[in-house]
């Protein structure tokens, strides 16, 4: 029973709170003074003034409550944002009351126990009307950014009390890691470390692979008329096989707590590389811990990769990571490149049997982190 009462009390405290403002304190002081004067003198006109002041206090409470009642909130958030990049969040507040408008509303975002003031104010909200409030939001770190609700407050009508009400309004947005342009030198260094990303082969792509003399059976649509005219021989185009332009990014999630900056840098670099390679037309696959994606291209695929990277969590080395999964996944039978991103530990030990085309090691990540 006591627990229930306490829970109820907490619930009430969370949903309604009232604070006396500076002006309110002065007003209460004057009310007390008038009350003393009324009791002392028994003058009914003093009692009348006292009643007026008490009625103003009561009206404050009643009107503030009416202002905060029957409001409806909706939150519009983008599906994914990048850490450090501004996005626009929108809160729609509607007055569901049939007669009374709401005045002087101020809104706070509530996340856990924290109230975040975004400077959102609604001066007047007529009955049945709604108001859209947009505000820039910059997520500082990747992960899922959750909002529990909205706290709305008002000091209307007389500014004597500040009353706040809580409206639960769940909302979340996936925050992808910080994405920065990937330096060309880094990709070159990676390609120097291992073999090139891929060996170009002829196939059915869009990039030119080779020009050669026409053989019987060649598709007449592939004749390259410019070279034919120049060499006086019938020449045909051979195109590069596009399915060979693909990369597997393998991110190790193993890192002790002290290596958290390097881990975050590895995640950020993985995201940056995924976007960069995707923009270059590569099919990108991501393996992060137990999570692995398929090869893919395009905005939707990139969003999936970013979501994976946004939500992946560092594993402490004590908990053994399944090395076999890397082994089985490391090879691309079609001949695509594999890049290992290892924030902690020796790549060869961690990924035994994996022959990566490029390795981003702990030291490289440390260097990049320091540079940032």
């Amino acid at each position, binding site marked *: 029973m006591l627990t229930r009462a306490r829970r109820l009390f907490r619930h009430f405290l969370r949903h309604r709170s009232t604070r006396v403002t500076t002006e309110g304190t002065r007003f209460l002081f004057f009310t007390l003074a008038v009350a003393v*004067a009324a009791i*002392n*003198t028994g003058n009914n*006109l003093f009692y009348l003034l006292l009643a007026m002041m008490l*009625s103003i206090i009561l009206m404050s409470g009643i009107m503030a409550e009416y202002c905060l009642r029957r409001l409806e909130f909706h939150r519009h958030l983008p599906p994914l944002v990048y850490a450090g990049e501004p996005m626009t969040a929108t809160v729609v507040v509607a007055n569901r009351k049939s007669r009374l408008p709401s005045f002087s509303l101020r809104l706070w975002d509530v996340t856990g126990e924290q109230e975040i003031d975004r400077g959102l104010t609604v001066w007047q909200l007529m009955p*049945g009307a709604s108001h859209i409030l947009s505000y820039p939001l910059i997520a500082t770190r990747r992960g899922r950014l959750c909002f529990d609700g909205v706290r709305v407050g008002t000091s209307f009508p*007389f500014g004597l009390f500040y009353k706040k009400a809580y409206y639960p309004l769940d909302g979340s947005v996936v925050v992808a890691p910080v994405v920065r342009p990937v330096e060309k030198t880094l990709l070159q260094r990676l390609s120097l470390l291992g073999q090139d990303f891929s060996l170009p082969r002829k196939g059915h792509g869009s990039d030119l692979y080779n020009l050669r003399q026409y053989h019987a059976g060649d598709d007449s649509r592939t004749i390259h008329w410019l070279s034919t005219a120049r060499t006086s021989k019938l020449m045909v185009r051979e195109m590069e096989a596009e399915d060979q332009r693909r990369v597997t990014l393998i991110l190790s999630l193993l890192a002790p707590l002290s290596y958290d900056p390097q881990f975050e840098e590895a995640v950020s670099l993985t995201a940056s590389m995924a976007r960069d390679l995707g923009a270059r037309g590569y099919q990108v696959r991501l393996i992060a811990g137990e999570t692995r994606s398929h090869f893919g291209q395009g905005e939707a695929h990139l969003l999936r990769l970013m979501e994976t990277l946004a939500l992946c969590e560092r594993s402490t080395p004590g908990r053994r990571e399944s090395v076999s999964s890397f082994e089985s996944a490391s090879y691309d039978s079609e001949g695509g490149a594999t890049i290992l991103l290892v924030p902690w530990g020796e790549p060869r030990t961690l990924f035994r049997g994996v022959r990566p085309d490029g390795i981003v090691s702990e030291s490289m990540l440390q260097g990049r982190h320091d540079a940032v």
Partner: protein
Amino acid sequence: MPFNQALRLSSVLLAAAAFIGLGLGANLPEWLLLLTGISLILTLLRTLDIDRFQRVFDRMRLSAMVWNILTVIAFAGFWADLLWISAELLPAGVHFLLILMVIKLFNLDQRRDYLHLYAISLMAILGSAASTTDLWYLPVFLAYLLMGVWTLLLYQLTKESGTGHSPASMTENAAVALQPGRREQITPELFWLANGLAVGALCLTVLIFFTIPRVSAGFGQKGSGEGLRTSGFSETVDLGMIGPIKRDPGIVMRVELSDRTGLQLDRFYLRGMAYDRYDGKSWTTRLAHRRALVESPAGTFSVRHISSRSPRPVGQLIRQTILLEALDTAVLFAAPHPESISGQFLAIQSDPTGAIYLPFPTSSRIEYTVHSSVTPVAPADLQSQPAVYTEVFKQHFLQIPESSERLGVLAREITQSKSSAYEKAQAVEAYLTKNYRYSLDIPSSVQTNPLEEFLFERKTGYCEHYATAMVMLLRAAGVPARLVTGFLATEWNEYGNYYLVRQRDAHAWVEIHLPNSGWVTMDPTPAVSEPSGDSQWFALSRVMDTLRLRWNRFFVQYNAADQLAVVRGLKEGTAVVRDRAWNSLSLLLAPAGDFAGKTLSYIVGGNVRLAAGFLSFVVLGVGLVIWLMQRKPWSRWRRSGPVIREHIVIGQIYRGVLKQIERHGIAKPRNATPQEFLLLVQQQWAAAAEFVATITELYCRGRFGKMILTQQEIDLAYHSLKQLTQLDPPAHT
């Protein structure tokens, strides 16, 4: 009007309301009234942003240092006022308060200056409440309340508007900081809301005022000042003393009567004192020794008629509620023959003549209730009957001044044909009424024998002369009589149902003693027709006086006893209402109860079919009630909630889509859902499908998902509809 300007205006008006209250209530020096009044008018003109005044004000602007010095000088002046000029705290404080108000009015720049002005206004209205109880305080209070609500509201709104800006000056910087847009303007909604708030605050004020417990410690209780000077109610009254006050319209009391049936509507006597001895020039009472009345129950004092020599016949009781202004006499007025008196009194006294007194004159307005009995003349007194009086009684009520032989002759002449005392009295009364002229224009020169001058020479006079003459003539004829002073109420206020009694209603009349009836009131003064003024003005003045009475009754005089009475009344009222409701319900349900009783007796009697029918009926009835409670079919006709503007807009757009598509021969079947209709469009007009799909989705989200659509989504829907209208018609048409 922008918020800042409205705040300045309401603040000045608030101060003005408080100043008017103080000006009307407290005796302020003219120079101070003039100074504050001019300051308020100037500040008001400045607030209205009239350029010319603005420029003048800018030139007159003084530095903060000068204002501070002025404040210090005013404070020194307060002490001088307190110690030497007024020599009282309240007037000196009020003077200082007004000086401070003037200084603040010219110095209204920062937000804290406004707060100071509000505090000064509050003190001023408190000072006003301390110095008056008059009706005019009510409009001042109402104006103060209205302005107070507006001021607090605007103060809050300007504070909210200025959030994020530096706490700058209200006049210049804030005006620059705030862009004058609709947001900072007083909208019609805000205007009505503010006035509604004021009305709500007033209702709550009245409610709280009547319910707040009256706990009066009474350390600083103070009356309303000196009592109203009146005459004719001391132990000695010179003949002609009442005359000068017969032209004074000052209000002495108001008398409410619970029942006026059986009374003369135009003459209601309010008895004060009775006099037994006349020395030729003045009347004196020799029966002035007072005795305290017994209080039972609390607050009610029973009057014992010591001087009644025989048991009086018990007549009808008149209940009077009297609101008596502060007078310079301790006499309490009431209709003749008071039986009991109740009110907030510590003690009540009475003398052998039946006059009622307070222990000492009150310095404030008092209210009390008296029950008086109407004593008709006993039939036995109409017949001739020798009366035997004691010597003491004769000394008191048959006393005649020595040199009055002509009086005796006249008395015999008038009464010689009459046998009973009552007939003699009637004859004297008729004689005086018929043969003498009423006039207040009596020379004020010293008269050696005013009574004989009245009776035999001048033959004009007013109530005192008539009454004295009648008493003397009756005494000369052997009928015990005495002179009574009091008020004759003639001004009935039909709006408030009470008599308004003024100073000019002071009156003197006669009481004669009859063996069986006791003291009987008689009045030889002829009724004087008052010069009636403009009837509309009189009506208006009566309405005003009614308001004044209500104000005094319900606000100024309201006390803990009234609260208790209200609670008791409510309790009794509730019990009465409950009993009546129960009786009505019983009457209403009696036939149904009888029917149920008979049916039950039938069932008990063994009629199985009827029993089964009855039980089925009960079960069905209960089932129907449960069904109704759960399904609430009436909610279909009730609006489910406020309609959001965006929902209306998207509905209109969707209806536009349906109309547009119908033009091309694709009509929405009545039973098809929006999604089913979309499939139909996709099949029959593929080009339109994309736009219809967009609008359908938004429509479903807004209409059924209760989502509030953003302006961009509404724009998208509009855009899609526009594109739909520009499409080529489908191939099959």
